[in-house]
Each structure stands twice: as structure tokens, then as C-alpha cells.
């Protein structure tokens, strides 16, 4: 038995979150991800996945990039730098966004929070945080706004799952009941000044709690202690990936990259072509918005025997239709699922395709995303 090496591992020593020793102490398996040493699993990916679907899971996301943009021109600056229009956000609300190249290629996908009239938080993927920080700094130069990259000064823990509100409520002065999905408010958690956001990447209810870097271990310990009775489990990147895939959420580097534009990914709704002012990528995106698509991002349920993985070809009849971007055995559904780019015409739900798994063609059916929707 030999492992297929993971691609794209960096050469420099990975960065460590404040929680690395905590993770090691409970037997986590650590891997390099996006330039960081991160827990991929604790007890096991399937156990952790189920904990989030049935109870709650705690994730260390301190590797994410936190970029604060402030000033009277902060809204205009972000509107010019990103494809969305953060000026339309009410204070205390957030939205999904992207930062694109002039040709419309996606540099990163982001969450933008409006913390105050003239203060925004942009959360970037760990592997892109440096690039996004540099690009934002460049793109806001002409505006009355400043960028404060607090990626290495901000710890982030996420509590995700149906029990997350019950776990967090006794620890915080924030009233969670009126806090809506994609909303955030400043308060305290376990006596630590925090930004509490009702956001996540699992398809479940949950919260992301941003604190000062030095207090991350204190926050983690308080959440673990408070959550134990509710069945809270520490969860790694392995479960984070299976959870987001079931929820049909794209992962940068898999579904999204610089060679992909928002329309390819079915995320054209995020691009606000009707907003005032120019923004980076506008002219290319205006063309792409009305051009015939060259490929479509779809969900696939594998009906044959085999698991589709990133990079496997998707075939239709005798021709190659596209390629799998993410695939795994779905812990919740008990069958293999995948996301893939396919040729236009092959995207209708119910279309029978096949995935080439090693030397075999394994049947797959196009399935509407998400694969999993939480019960309400």
C-alpha cells in the first residue's frame, strides 16, 4: 500500500496557529494546508462529520486571512476591488464575494462583513490571503480607505451544527436569537472581546468567532468545555471538506481558480454588473455574462461502483465532457458524490454521465446542488 502524494505542498516551513499544541495534545493528525500546519482529523473524518450534522463541531480556522478596510471611502474602495457591491450591505450584515483579475479569472472567494458604516472585514482563504492583501492594497490606493491586514493577529474558531447556538449562548453576551444567517455583531465570548458571525462552510447553522490571536487558545478551551455536554467534537479539515461538498459549496483550488470565471462556476449572481463605478474585471465579466458558456459546474451522484476524485475525467457517450473538481464518499448520503465541470448540454439534472475511475467508466447522474440541505 502506498499513498498518492498530496499535490502542491510548499517548501517553506508552514505557519502554525495558536492551537497547534492543543491539537497535538488530543492526537490530531496535522498536515500542511495553504501554507499552514492544520489538523486534518482528530478521532476520524466520519465521526467528526456526523458530529457536525447531528450535534456540533469545533474548527480552528485561524489560518484564514482577515483584512480590515476602513475609512470614508471603504465602501467605494471595495466596490472597485471586488465583484460584489459591499456598499449595499447593512451594518452588521455580510455577503459572499470574489476578487477577480482584469480578465475575470477568480483570484479568491471571500466573505465581506460590514462592521460599521466605514469599516469592513474581508475574510480570504489562507492560501490566497497574501495575494488578496497585496491586491486590495493596490486597488484601494485612490480611495480614502486603509487596509489593515490582521491575518496574523486574528484567531478564528467556528462552532457548526444544530447544537451550536445552545453551546455558544451561555458563553456570550451576544443575543444569538435575532442574529441572522450572514450577520455579525461584536461582543464577548468567554470574557474575550469577539466578533460573532452566523456564517459557516458546513451547510449547518453555526457561528464563526474572531478574537485576538493571543486569546485563541482560551476561546477554544472555553468552547470545548462548554460544548462537551452537547456532544461538541473538535473537527479537522477532512470533515470540513466533506461537509462543504455535501452542502454544494465551492472550494478555491478545486472548483474555483484563476482560469475560472464566476459564470463558469454558476456564481454569476455574485457579480453586480449594475453597480456604480468601474471595478476590476468589469469589461471582461460584462462580455462573459452574455457569452455562451463553455462549461458548467454540476453535482454528480455516482451510481456505479467507485469514488470520483479531483481530476478524474467525466465522459458522456464516447467523448470527454469535463473533469471532476471534488469528490468523496458522502458520509451523510452513504454514496459517492462529486462536483464537476461538464460540457454545455450535459448539465441538466438527471443526465447520465460517467466518471473515468482508473481504467473503468463508472456511471454518474447529474444531481441538483446542494446534495444535502439541513432540516429546519
Amino acid at each position, binding site marked *: 500500500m502506498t499513498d498518492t502524494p498530496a499535490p502542491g505542498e510548499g517548501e517553506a516551513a508552514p505557519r502554525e496557529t495558536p492551537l497547534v499544541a492543543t491539537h497535538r495534545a488530543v492526537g490530531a493528525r496535522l498536515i500542511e494546508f495553504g501554507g499552514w500546519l492544520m489538523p486534518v482529523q482528530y478521532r476520524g473524518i466520519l465521526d467528526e462529520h456526523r458530529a457536525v450534522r447531528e450535534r456540533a463541531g469545533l474548527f480552528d480556522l485561524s489560518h484564514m486571512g482577515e483584512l480590515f478596510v476602513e475609512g470614508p471611502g471603504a465602501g467605494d474602495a471595495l466596490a472597485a476591488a471586488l465583484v460584489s457591491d459591499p456598499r449595499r450591505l447593512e451594518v452588521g450584515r455580510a455577503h459572499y464575494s470574489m476578487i477577480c483579475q482584469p480578465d475575470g479569472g477568480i483570484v479568491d472567494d471571500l466573505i465581506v462583513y460590514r462592521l460599521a458604516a466605514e469599516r469592513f472585514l474581508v475574510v480570504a482563504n489562507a492560501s490566497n490571503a497574501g495575494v488578496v492583501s497585496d491586491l486590495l492594497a493596490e486597488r484601494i490606493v485612490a480611495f480614502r480607505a486603509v487596509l489593515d491586514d490582521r491575518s496574523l493577529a486574528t484567531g478564528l474558531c467556528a462552532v457548526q451544527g444544530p447544537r451550536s447556538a445552545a453551546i455558544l449562548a451561555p458563553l456570550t453576551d451576544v443575543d444569538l436569537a435575532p442574529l441572522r444567517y450572514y450577520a455579525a455583531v461584536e461582543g464577548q465570548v468567554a470574557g474575550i472581546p469577539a466578533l460573532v458571525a452566523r456564517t459557516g462552510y458546513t451547510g449547518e447553522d453555526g457561528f464563526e468567532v474572531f478574537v485576538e490571536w493571543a486569546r485563541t487558545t482560551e476561546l477554544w478551551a472555553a468552547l470545548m468545555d462548554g460544548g462537551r455536554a452537547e456532544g461538541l467534537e473538535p473537527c479537522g479539515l477532512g470533515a470540513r471538506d466533506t461537509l462543504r461538498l455535501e452542502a454544494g459549496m465551492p472550494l478555491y483550488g478545486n472548483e474555483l481558480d484563476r482560469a475560472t470565471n464566476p459564470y463558469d462556476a454558476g456564481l454569476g449572481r455574485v457579480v453586480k454588473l449594475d453597480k456604480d463605478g468601474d471595478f476590476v474585471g468589469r469589461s471582461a465579466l460584462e462580455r462573459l455574462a452574455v457569452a455562451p458558456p463553455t462549461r458548467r459546474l454540476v453535482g454528480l451522484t455516482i451510481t456505479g461502483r*467507485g*469514488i470520483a476524485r479531483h481530476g478524474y475525467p467525466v465522459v458522456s457517450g464516447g467523448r470527454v465532457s469535463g473533469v471532476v473538481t471534488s469528490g468523496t*464518499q458522502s458520509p451523510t448520503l452513504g454514496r459517492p458524490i462529486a462536483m464537476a465541470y461538464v460540457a454545455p448540454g450535459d448539465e441538466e439534472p438527471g443526465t447520465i454521465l460517467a466518471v473515468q475511475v482508473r481504467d473503468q467508466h463508472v456511471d454518474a447522474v447529474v444531481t441538483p446542488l446542494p446534495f444535502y440541505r439541513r432540516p429546519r
Partner: protein
Amino acid sequence: MVPADLRYTKEHEWVRQDGDIATVGITQFAADELGDVVFVELPAVGATLQQHGTFGVVESVKAVSDLFAPVAGEVVEINGDLVAAPELVNIDPYGRGWMLRVRLSDPGQPAALLDAAAYESVTHG
């Protein structure tokens, strides 16, 4: 501790010999390294295995790994329970998680593999 009565490869397969029949699986170390096994692909009964050739694939949630034949021979039985319950590889790798039985081309082959002590030094090296 690994079972003393088995033979091993440095690729983490084990072999249990019974005359000219060898039972093959992967070790606890390998199963633990993989994590939750969710899929096992095995050859058909009647297939011929070359020693050191790939005979199948084991997949965990995250990883795909090739399986290498520790011995040469003809496949006489595969563990059909692994289709519905691949997790047996994690739960009981030396027992119910066995993968296939081979009629040995050379019944002397298993004795030339690593014994338990030598395999332990591989995993603790």
C-alpha cells in the same frame, strides 16, 4: 504489536499462509494511516497476481492508495463483505477485514517476506 504468525511487506500488506493458500490484507498501521476506509476495489476471482504488482485500491475519505500483491498466484476468493462494509478494514484488519485468498505459485514465497519483528521495525523506523 502485530500478529506474530503473519508475514508482512514494507508496503503494509500482511499474508497468512495455510499450505498453498495465502490470505492477504493490510496492516492495522496502514488502516490507521488511511483513516476511515470507504471503498475497496479487488480483482476478480481467477485473476493472476504478480508479486509486487498492484492488485487493487483502497480508498479512505481523503486518500486513494494502491494495493500491492505480496505474493504471486491465482485469486481464489475475495472478501465480498468489504463491498457493503469497507470499514471492516479499520475495525478488524487481520480478521474480518481480510481482502483476498490466493493459490500460491510458489508456496515458499511468504517465508521470504518480513516477519513480525522486522515489520515492527519498519513502522517504528
